């Protein structure tokens, strides 16, 4: 994993990415942040690690709704390029923080998916 993989993710979203690849990318981001001192990569790595954890958590039960994956991809492609292209590390860190908040807010559960209209509600037996 390297910056080219992160650029690819920022361009294409989760298309062609598994949770395992996202985890590897998160690890690379955090290592790079520590090596370079550029905090934006730490925020990005933190967000990607949370995404991979959450996605894997749902895996045994059948995954995440396609629309949720699409929404996550949209957030990634909308914000991550700006994070990476920021003029300075400090500007990038601010944008990365917003990216992290927005992405992590989308890591919901079945109830959130129902509220969003992505699933039908559990129907208690009568």
């Amino acid at each position, binding site marked *: 994993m390297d910056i080219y993989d992160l650029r690819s993710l920022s361009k294409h979203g*989760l298309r*062609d*990415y*598994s*949770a*395992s690849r996202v*985890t590897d990318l998160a690890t690379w981001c955090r290592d790079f942040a520590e090596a370079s001192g550029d905090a934006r990569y730490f925020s990005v790595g933190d967000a990607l*690690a949370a995404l*991979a*954890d959450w*996605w*894997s958590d*749902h*895996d*045994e*039960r*059948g*995954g*995440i*709704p*396609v*629309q949720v*994956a699409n929404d996550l991809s949209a957030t990634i492609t909308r914000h991550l390029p700006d994070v990476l292209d920021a003029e300075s590390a400090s500007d990038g860190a601010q944008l990365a923080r917003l990216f992290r908040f927005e992405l992590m807010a989308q890591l919901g*559960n*079945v109830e959130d998916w129902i509220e969003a209209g*992505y*699933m*039908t*509600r*559990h*129907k*208690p*037996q009568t």
Partner: protein
Amino acid sequence: MSPRGPPGAEQDECRCAGIANNASLYNLGVHFVGSLYQQRAIKTWLRDQPDGWVIASGDWSPFYFAFRDVPSYPQLFGEACELLSSAIEKRDGEFDRLIGVASTGIALTGAVAQMLRVPMGFTRKVIGVRTAEDLQKATNAWGGHSIVEGVMQDGDRILVVDDVITTFTSKATAIAQIEAEAQSRGVHVEVVGVAVVVDRSGKRSAEAPVPVTSAIDLLDELDAMRVGGASDREVDVIRRYLLDPTPFQNPDVRAAMQVEAK
């Protein structure tokens, strides 16, 4: 329901009160699977989510098993616990302790351990750890923290309990957690198997490194979904998907299924 035999089979000897005989277990299993569908704990692309689901490998899935809501419904949860207790009891003498996998497995294990009168513990969710390899890296990097709650005694034979199995990944992580915790406590334990309510692996759990016991093997018992109102089409698609998910990764196939559902 072949693992438990047909209705009318001879009654098992059960050490815990309330666990039914084979015939009533068969009926309970049919009712349970039907209820899972009817109450939308089993969700399908055709009824619940036309676009389907994406699993962590990036592959598409036509159904979702929402067990996390089940403990909120006492009758359904009671059926799950009774079926799982009966499946586990067939392994009587093979284990000393149950360990539930965080998070849904913990509620199940608590109930089942009480029914069977066996001790239990549970794993803790470790942030950033998805696989046994991740756990090894985390342990190497950060040292030992308590990652399993509850007593473990030297020589314990442990049965790992969870709600569902699809791939073995999360169970392998739980087993690695238990082994790492035992090592840090200076005791030797052996994980003798995994027990789940629903096996949705399409028989691939038979290749797991430890024996997997399930109350319901979904591939064998899919027809029971019809009791809850599932259509022939849903049952057929899920059966074919469990046997081989590959054809369903074709975008044209998925697009046609989305149109069909909408």
